[in-house]
């Protein structure tokens, strides 16, 4: 369940961040602290973005930072960072990001429910709008509880 992953410890907000590298470092921090990922996972994400990999830009100002399990995932986890001012992913004006998600998945097929909920959360227009409007972890959790209710 997403509500198990996006908790007050992993749902972050920042008035100001110092570019996309800072945003990635911040959103990954709770997962590093909890031991869900290794430092190598963050490095892999940063390297791929620096290398022009803006594929994590999902659209609508949302980025899903992730790499492969072998890049340093210890266990499945998810975190989020809402930035007050859009951050340019890879310093590219074509990729302004308001919400960074950091996904660590050991094997997504073992986490079908979490991935399915994430897909619905981000693809449902009203849920996505509410998620972007959340200003606290409690707001975010309230949105998560609506997943699946109007499917």
């Amino acid at each position, binding site marked *: 369940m997403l509500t198990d992953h996006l908790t007050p410890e992993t749902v972050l907000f920042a008035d100001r961040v110092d570019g996309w590298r800072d945003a990635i470092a911040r959103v990954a921090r709770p997962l590093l602290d909890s031991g869900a990922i290794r430092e190598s996972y963050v490095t892999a994400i940063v390297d791929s973005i620096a290398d022009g990999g803006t594929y*994590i830009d*999902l659209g609508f100002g949302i980025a899903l930072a992730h790499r492969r399990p072998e890049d340093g995932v210890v266990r499945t986890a998810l975190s989020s960072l809402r930035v007050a001012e859009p951050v340019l992913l890879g310093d590219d004006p074509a990729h302004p990001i308001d919400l960074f998600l950091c996904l660590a998945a050991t094997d997504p097929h073992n986490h079908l429910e979490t991935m*399915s909920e*994430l897909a619905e959360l*981000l*693809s449902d227009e009203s849920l996505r709008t509410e998620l972007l409007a959340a200003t606290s972890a409690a707001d975010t959790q309230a949105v998560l509880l609506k997943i699946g209710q109007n499917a």
Partner: protein
Amino acid sequence: MKFLAVCSSGLGSSFMVHMNIEKVLKELGVTGVDVDHADLGSVGPDSADVVFVGADLADSVGGLGDVVVLDSIIDKEELRTKVRETAVRKGITVPAGDAS
């Protein structure tokens, strides 16, 4: 008939597109289409009948045959439109084809 969602890692984005394609096909009442996902490095021209990718990979999928490019991989409306168009183009019956 097989639709394949492809992204760089084969994990996050393509998996979400895979699940959303399945939802859209169900909403459209389309049956008989297998949906799967994969990473860019493991797919070839014979991997699927139609490959769905995000705009970032539009330039990397030249050799993969029939490719549908999604401007946003989480835009359900865009996906619904493009899946419906693709199904019609492939001669698949779309029972709810006129619905928006």
